[in-house]
């Protein structure tokens, strides 16, 4: 037996597709001129349209199940991925499907207001599943993006700055884990050797928590730097940080430390026999 819905989908397929594409606006209709692949979104939509209609043409049942490997699921995920990459919100893909549902249900009701309830229920079920799938796919992509971003944040490069002749400044910002500590040490040692630095200022103002693991990384970095003949001045440990470090029992023995970067720079200049004076004083 053919249901009303199946009949409708068969007879009005082309019109439905045309109506649907018309109802979708913006990016699909106005491809960027330099983008040669502007047919692609439309092809994707065509494929998705065919898949959805095939799903709707299944004999109605109480539950609509969608296999993850089904072409429909695959196409939907691809579409979501495309849109997410373009920066579109989840509402865009979902809106796109709901607009198709609206078109079909409208035609159904127009054709037979009295006998369409069963078909409408089925329609509802199919689109419900599709919406859930699209939303899950969207979340997956977002989560993936967030993980990537947090990774790249951790891998922020740490610049070693040449503050003055033979004075280097290493401002540390953020979380210092093993990987980052290694990277910091490498770039610092390389810079010390290149500039024959006599003093290195290690500024910790931007390090949120100084625990034993961070302290150990710092100690190793400092020891290695010293082997290359530089003296290390630590700056920017907060009063709370200092208190916490001593409670933890961590001692930066023999490391010169100053509360502020300003004081650290003054100390470093002193070590290389320089100082900052006002222009007035220096005039003959």
């Amino acid at each position, binding site marked *: 037996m053919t249901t009303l819905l199946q009949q409708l989908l068969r007879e009005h397929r082309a019109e439905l597709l045309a109506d649907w594409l018309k109802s979708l606006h913006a990016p699909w209709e106005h491809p960027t001129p330099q983008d040669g692949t502007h047919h692609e979104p439309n092809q994707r939509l065509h494929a998705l349209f065919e898949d959805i209609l095939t799903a709707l043409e299944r004999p109605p049942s109480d539950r609509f199940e969608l296999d993850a490997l089904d072409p429909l699921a695959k196409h939907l995920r691809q579409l979501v991925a495309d849109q997410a990459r373009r920066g579109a919100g989840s509402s865009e893909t979902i809106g796109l499907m709901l607009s198709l549902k609206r078109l079909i249900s409208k035609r159904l009701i127009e054709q037979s207001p009295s006998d369409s309830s069963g078909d409408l229920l089925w329609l509802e079920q199919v689109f419900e599943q599709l919406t859930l799938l699209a939303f899950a796919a969207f979340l997956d992509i977002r989560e993936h993006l967030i993980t990537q971003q*947090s990774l790249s944040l951790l891998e922020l490069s740490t610049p070693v700055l040449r503050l003055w002749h033979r004075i280097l400044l290493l401002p540390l910002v953020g979380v210092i884990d093993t990987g980052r500590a290694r990277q910091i040490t490498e770039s610092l040692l390389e810079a010390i050797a290149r500039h024959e630095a006599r003093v290195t200022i290690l500024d910790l103002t931007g390090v949120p928590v100084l*625990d*034993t693991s961070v*302290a150990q990384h710092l100690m190793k970095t400092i020891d290695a730097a010293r082997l290359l003949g530089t003296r290390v001045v630590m700056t920017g440990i907060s009063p*709370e*940080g200092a*208190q916490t470090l001593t*409670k*933890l*029992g961590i001692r930066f023995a023999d490391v010169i430390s100053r509360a502020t970067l300003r004081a650290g720079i003054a100390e470093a200049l002193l070590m290389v026999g320089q100082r900052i004076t006002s222009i007035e004083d220096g005039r003959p």
Partner: protein
Amino acid sequence: MPELLVSERIPVRIATDIVIARRAARELCERLGFGKADQTRLATAVSELARNVIQYAGEGVCLIEDRSDGVSRRIRVVVEDQGPGIADLGRALTDGFSTGGGLGAGLPGTRRLVDEFQIESAPGRTCVTIVMAKPF
């Protein structure tokens, strides 16, 4: 039984979770009116314990609770894992002892950072409970 105002359960699996756990601890500390030094102490303690979980047990959970009562504001943090356990608790709590190549300051240091410190350990379960308290 005092009413629990806030309770947060944070899974500790990867290094980023350490940051999440200690930030949550610091935020609750701040919200309850603890000073900056206390915030830093607790955040550091949580950081130590969570890092131990990842280093020695692989994964665990960190439970941060507001346990304030009429007398004092209290934050309790329970860090628990199903790891191999600590073979010699006495030595693990001694400064300078480490089986993992660390400074050996984590556990004894954490004990000094907080107001209450409890540790239970057996193969299959290690549980550290710390409390920061401050009278109203």
